[in-house]
């Protein structure tokens, strides 16, 4: 607890390593987030306003609508995979370095 006072939060916030983490992470997270939201809402929009498109049969009785709904699952898992890979490989290492140095950044 005594150590807590010695961390200078504003200094870490201004540290180039933290700024680099912030930039990398924000851009990446927002990109994924916006993509996933757009992709998700295409499903109700497609089913509601373009039903004819969803009815087109592509593989026996399997139509565009079913494939698109299934693709939502694949995309969601894909995003989870991409994020966790990037976080495990890049962000965690960057975070660990900042945390190690926390008491020395003034």
């Amino acid at each position, binding site marked *: 607890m005594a150590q807590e006072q010695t961390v200078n*939060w504003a200094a870490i916030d201004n540290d180039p390593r*933290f700024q680099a983490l912030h930039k990398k992470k924000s851009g990446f997270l927002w990109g*994924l987030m916006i993509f996933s939201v757009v992709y998700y809402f295409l*499903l109700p929009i497609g*089913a509601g306003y373009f039903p004819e498109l969803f009815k087109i049969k592509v593989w*026996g009785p399997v139509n565009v609508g079913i494939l698109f709904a299934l693709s939502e*699952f694949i995309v969601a898992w894909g995003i989870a995979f991409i994020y966790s890979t990037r*976080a495990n490989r890049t962000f965690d290492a960057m975070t660990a370095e900042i*945390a190690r140095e926390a008491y020395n950044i003034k």
Partner: protein
Amino acid sequence: MRKVLWTSTFIGLSLMLSDAAMAASSGAVADKYKWLTFLVFGAIIGLTMFVTYRAAKQTHSTADFYAAGRSVSGIQNGWAIAGDYLSAASFLGIAGLISLYGYDGFMYSVGWLVAYITVLLLIAEPCRNIGKYTLGDILAFRNNPKASKTIAAVSTVLVSTFYLTAQMVGGGVLVKTLIGIDYTVSVIVVGILMLTYVVFGGMKATTWVQIIKAILLVTASILLVIFTWGKFGFSLPGFLQAAVDNPDIQAQVKKLLGESAANMAPADLGQRFLEPGLYLKSPIDQISLGMALVLGTAGMPHILMRFFTVPTAQDARKSVIWAMGIIGGFYVLTLFMGLGAAMNVTSAKIAALDAGGNMAAPLLAQYVGGGPDSMLGNLFLAFVAAVAFATIVAVVAGLVLASASAMSHDLYVGVFRGDHASPQEQVMAARVSTVIVGALAIYVGIAAQGQNVAHLVALAFAVAASSNLPAVFLTLYWKKTNTWGVVGGMLAGSLTAIYLVMISPNMSYPKAIIANANKVLDGTPEVTEAKPAVAASTGLCTLWAMEGCVAASPAVAVGPAKPGARAKLEAAKTELATLTDEAAKAAKQKEIEGLEKTIAKAEGDLKKWEGQTTSMMGFEKPKFMLKNPGLISIPVGFLVTILLSLFTRDRRSEEMWDELYVRQNTGIHAEGAVAH
């Protein structure tokens, strides 16, 4: 001494259940096989009791009680999140929707998984890094602690109560339909079981109950899918083709489409089951629900709370990944369960037991095992019923723990005692609040019997998305957010959501119910003049009931008067007297019974709503046209938070920003695990 107490609780509950079952007569399980059901129920309850007993021995501090000592692993937490999230509504409800409406039911399930992307990318890790036990802790980090903890506690209790009421009522009805136990008894048994887990074992027991339940649920689903899909060599087109060719599914589509299906070929009818639009008629409403799901899940107090149980932010991440795998995999399985039930059990039989389709998965289990008269079929049914029961208890336990922690940790310790309570006092407060919330849940469950509660789950998500999520999200990511914005935004978001639901089509409108009941009883008069179909007004009319808005109506063809149920009953009775063939007699008798049921229901409605003309809010018709308020209330929540934050000053919120932002990203000084 303790062991005696545990054993007697277990025996007491089992006796209560079997006693009620002996008295009960109806239910999906035949009387001859009731003992089987209790064997399976007993085994599962016994297992959870044992886990609770073990957990209770390790639950001493507040960190143990609220956060399982932060010693839950990522994988365990992933299973527990799935167990917490896959409520009976999604387990039985979505399979049921698919069995009755095909494609739309499956589409409905997608949003529940996508919701976890928000949780993963924006919420889980930061919350783990800066939070302690509750939503209030996150908001209080940089906002005024007392104000933000108070509003967070109110919102948590509100959201949990909506969700809890839906679970208790749904659970009571479900257990009654499955095994015929009296509604009140099953609500009390669920309540007592849940209280035992939470009061003694805290978060540790709750976590394990949720894990056990999730494993059972996934196992049951995989088995059902192997049996139903395996017949087709696990070929997707093969399975779907069988659904398209199925005469029962074709009949169901014909029933759903009504007159517009008159000229459709059987193959087209079957294919229609795999196309959108049989259930979800309003795309705008769908989008509104989607918004509430995608943003609301991340604001659900009982889900947020789960992230405080793992040791680090990395484990929080891992747990969401696991949860997404399990939840998503489960929803893909529901497609096969739902269609399998529609093909093998038939939509008509499913809807006869429960209009919402909740019995689809249990009845499919019974079919897979060999049908209603076989031992194996009833064992399978008993297993699925027990899983459904465990589901309700596990979800309710998580909700009660979340609201109890808001009451004890945020309100009592944080606000009333100014954070100066001894550890013993804090644990005591947590247990007392649990008992209070649990008793309330039982009371509400019994009081709300027979009420229309289906909209409460959607309302819970809408309030979480319009109130909790903007507050948490902006506190974590926007420097200018302050106490005024958070408090004002949460109030505005939640009140807007609640108000819109109260003037929406979710409420009961006596005039429409009475008109419908009369139509059922007396039929429709002769049509002498054909009317073309009228399309609904577009634009703002899709949102608000205004002057000049026209509702959609189908084309009306010239035709004779159609008899109502009363006239049909008379005719059927006269016909019965003339029949001599035994089989025809039995069929007629069945038809008469069905008609009598219909008449009883319509007459009941008439009696219940007699003399009333307006809804609870004093309206004859809905004012707000969507069932889901998120489309309006979520932007309101965000806007009010942002505007109030821009126009007010709060020094603490500004000064704490650097610390919050660094800590939410790096996990420096995050609450550590408790060693045992």
